[in-house]
């Protein structure tokens, strides 16, 4: 794992997205759905869906979005997230193979919250976690099966995905407050 310290070494989000798409193709099977975690994961899932549909049109891949604010474990410390977005799961989760997508994997707490929420929709057949970057620092026994890049980011920094007006994805590096 390389270590990121300055903004000049930022990974290119768009090329990581292509890597992720290629890896995910092997995970496609009947009854698969792709679920992006708000907001970065949702942007990635939105762009992955047409690519994956093109490569395997026979699987009829459906897309959903999760905002796990109501399941977060820091609610008692930090209150409700100021910007919650409605989760949209327009398919029956029961028995589905879920490809769960997020931008950056860090502590694992967001993924725990997202999985808890997902199970309130039904019992999936399986969940596969895929991310653009695994930045290290997990605090729970949760780990992505697919990471387009393993890149250690120091604790005082935040690797943030953003989307520009042309729907292109970019990483920025921010100092934690």
């Amino acid at each position: 794992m390389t270590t990121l310290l300055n903004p000049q070494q930022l990974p290119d989000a768009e090329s990581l997205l292509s890597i992720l798409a290629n890896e995910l193709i092997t995970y496609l099977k009947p009854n698969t759905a792709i679920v992006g975690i708000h907001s970065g994961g949702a942007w990635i899932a939105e762009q992955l869906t047409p690519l994956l549909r093109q490569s395997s049109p026979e699987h009829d891949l459906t897309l959903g979005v999760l905002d796990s604010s109501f399941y977060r474990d820091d609610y008692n410390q930090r209150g409700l997230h100021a910007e919650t977005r409605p989760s949209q799961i327009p398919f029956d989760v029961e028995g589905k193979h879920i490809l769960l997508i997020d931008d950056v994997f860090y502590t694992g707490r967001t993924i725990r919250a997202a999985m808890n929420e997902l199970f309130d929709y039904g019992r999936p057949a399986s969940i596969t976690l895929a991310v653009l970057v695994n930045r290290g620092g997990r605090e729970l026994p949760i780990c992505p099966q697919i990471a387009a890049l393993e890149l250690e980011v120091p604790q005082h920094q935040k690797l943030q995905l953003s989307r520009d007006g042309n729907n292109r994805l970019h990483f920025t590096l921010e100092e934690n407050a």
Partner: protein
Amino acid sequence: MYNPQLTKDGKLKHLLTIEGLPRAILNQILDTAESFVGVAEREVKKVPLLRGKTVCNIFFENSTRTRTTFEIAAKRLSADVINLNVNTSSQSKGETILDTVDNLTAMHADMFVVRHAESGAAHFIAKHVAPHIHVINAGDGRHAHPTQGLLDVFTIRRYKPEMHNLRVALVGDVLHSRVARSEIHALTTLGVPEVRVIAPKTLLPQDVEKLGVQVYHDMNTGLKDVDVIMMLRLQNERMSGALLPSAQEYYKCYGLTPEKLALAKPDAIVLHPGPMNRGVEIDSAVADGKQSVILPQVTYGIAVRMAVMSILAGNSE
């Protein structure tokens, strides 16, 4: 300016009245409620936010619907819920409001939902409680019923998202209505440019114009080209006073019939906070008609109350 509803850093700690709340807080509540609408459509209609918390519905005045929706909202947030109808319990034995509250606090309650016939009761309790306890006003006298005002604007926003472009009319007994006051504050805070009140002079408060509304005494002019009609409940006890001649007379002048509804825009929606007096303030053909959103109001009321409870419970000093 000091606002007893807010924490030092401006977050909502109690919900006592909409008056004086910034637009950003109203929008946060409405946006959060939007997320809770979907929760009710899932296999498991619960989220774990208030797990381990105890919500006490203290109703010094009866209201089955409001209490039920608060109870469902708290239960869908995974809270434990205690319902107290105080007029039938300890107060009849002489206990004061604050003794009732202190006793419930000693039982480790985390949130009080308060309905009282006296204006200011919820403020009074909010001033008294320990800092970790949150208070929601579920209706106090003629003063305020903030969650009703919020669920009404939430319903309007769902059907008519362009709030800055709306003409809204409130019809009926504004004078005695805490609902009307909360609705007016919510609408004006959210930037609705034209809010009308339509009522006989005897059912309007003095200086009602100061709330930022236009006054009409006649349905024919008042309903013309409005997008939203918010009917108010005519309380039966007003009939016995000198304020109104009779229910029949009131229906003739201020009852919402299909003919009067036709004066509004063709796609206008009709709201009513319930319980309805059919044939007094509203005709059944309107209440059950295509333009009525009275039952969606009830459904959305749960999502809005879930939003309020989960925002408050997360904002402690």
